[in-house]
């Protein structure tokens, strides 16, 4: 049944220590967890094995208890002290300079959608104005037009009897309605 070369005793011992680590974690036996970690301090291969196991268990625990909205805080990129995180807003007021990473991580997540909506609205408005200018000529910009006395074509109610040739603004009205 054994197809492979026998694993060396040190390798087998490491596998056993890794097994003890997983089992001890599962039942909350911190004494054993601490003992295996102590052994891993002087054994880089065992330390690597435990790190791989930790990565799998982290993914599982995060699936069961998802992290809060700011997972970047858990990656260790931010300040090491919670104090710095709590005082992030006071930092903005100039009490303490913030690092680029801190600013990036303290940005409000809802700001972006509002900005996008505003930009989209502005672009739509610009396209509308351009369409008006190109198709029918903008009465506000025409040399002979009285821009102060006439409302723009877009806000005029459409006359059902009007024909496209009646009014230079007619085409715009029809096009917009």
């Amino acid at each position: 049944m054994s197809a492979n070369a026998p694993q060396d005793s040190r390798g087998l011992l490491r596998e056993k220590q890794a097994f003890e680590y997983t089992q001890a974690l599962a039942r909350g036996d911190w004494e054993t967890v601490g003992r295996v970690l102590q052994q891993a301090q002087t054994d880089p291969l065992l330390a690597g094995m435990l790190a791989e196991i930790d990565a799998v268990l982290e993914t599982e625990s995060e699936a069961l208890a998802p992290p809060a909205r700011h997972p970047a805080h858990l990656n260790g990129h931010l300040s090491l002290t919670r104090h710095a995180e709590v005082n992030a807003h006071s930092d903005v007021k100039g009490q303490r300079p913030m690092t680029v990473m801190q600013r990036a991580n303290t940005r409000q997540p809802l700001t972006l959608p509002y900005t996008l909506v505003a930009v989209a609205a502005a672009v739509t408005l610009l396209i509308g104005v351009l369409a008006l200018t190109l198709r029918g000529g903008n009465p506000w910009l025409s040399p002979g037009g009285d821009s102060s006395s006439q409302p723009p074509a877009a806000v005029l109610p459409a006359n059902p009897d009007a024909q496209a040739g009646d009014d230079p603004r007619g085409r715009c009205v029809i096009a917009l309605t």
Partner: protein
Amino acid sequence: MCRTLRGYLFRAGVSGDRLDDAARELWNEVVREALSHEARFADDLQPRPWLLGIAVNLIRRQQTAAVQRQQREPLARDLYPAQHEEALSDDEVFERLAALTSMTDELDQEEAVNDLLQGLSPADQQLLKLAVVQQLDGKALALALAISPGAARVRLHRALDRLRQQHAPDTGPNKENAHER
């Protein structure tokens, strides 16, 4: 690192809504302890296990304090003491499987493996047989299963745990749950 501590605290029974804050607080404590005992860290030591060891000590300290505060409330493990006394130890269950890897006669080995794994689910039997073939080497098992070594070891360890429960006397709630998991 903070994710690992979060996982530790999850297994230590910290509730989900407090996990992130508790992990950050623990990480702060670990850094503080590490800096104050910097001299103990030798150059040839692995930093990750060293820091995690500090975290484990802090968790144990907190649990001890919590137990002292709530002396009258029984712990879950105290409710089922027989389960821990009579079940096979980690060492025993691992050695039982490890002993099979060194058998030279393939027929004898196969028979012994089948005897040991009797009663387990087909998936667990298949995994443990493969582990015996691969000499319980996590990396080789990972290659055979086409998954990461960490995932292969976690799967193997859980199958071994179910094997332990299979061979434990019929006490405690785990026996009933063995097949459900």
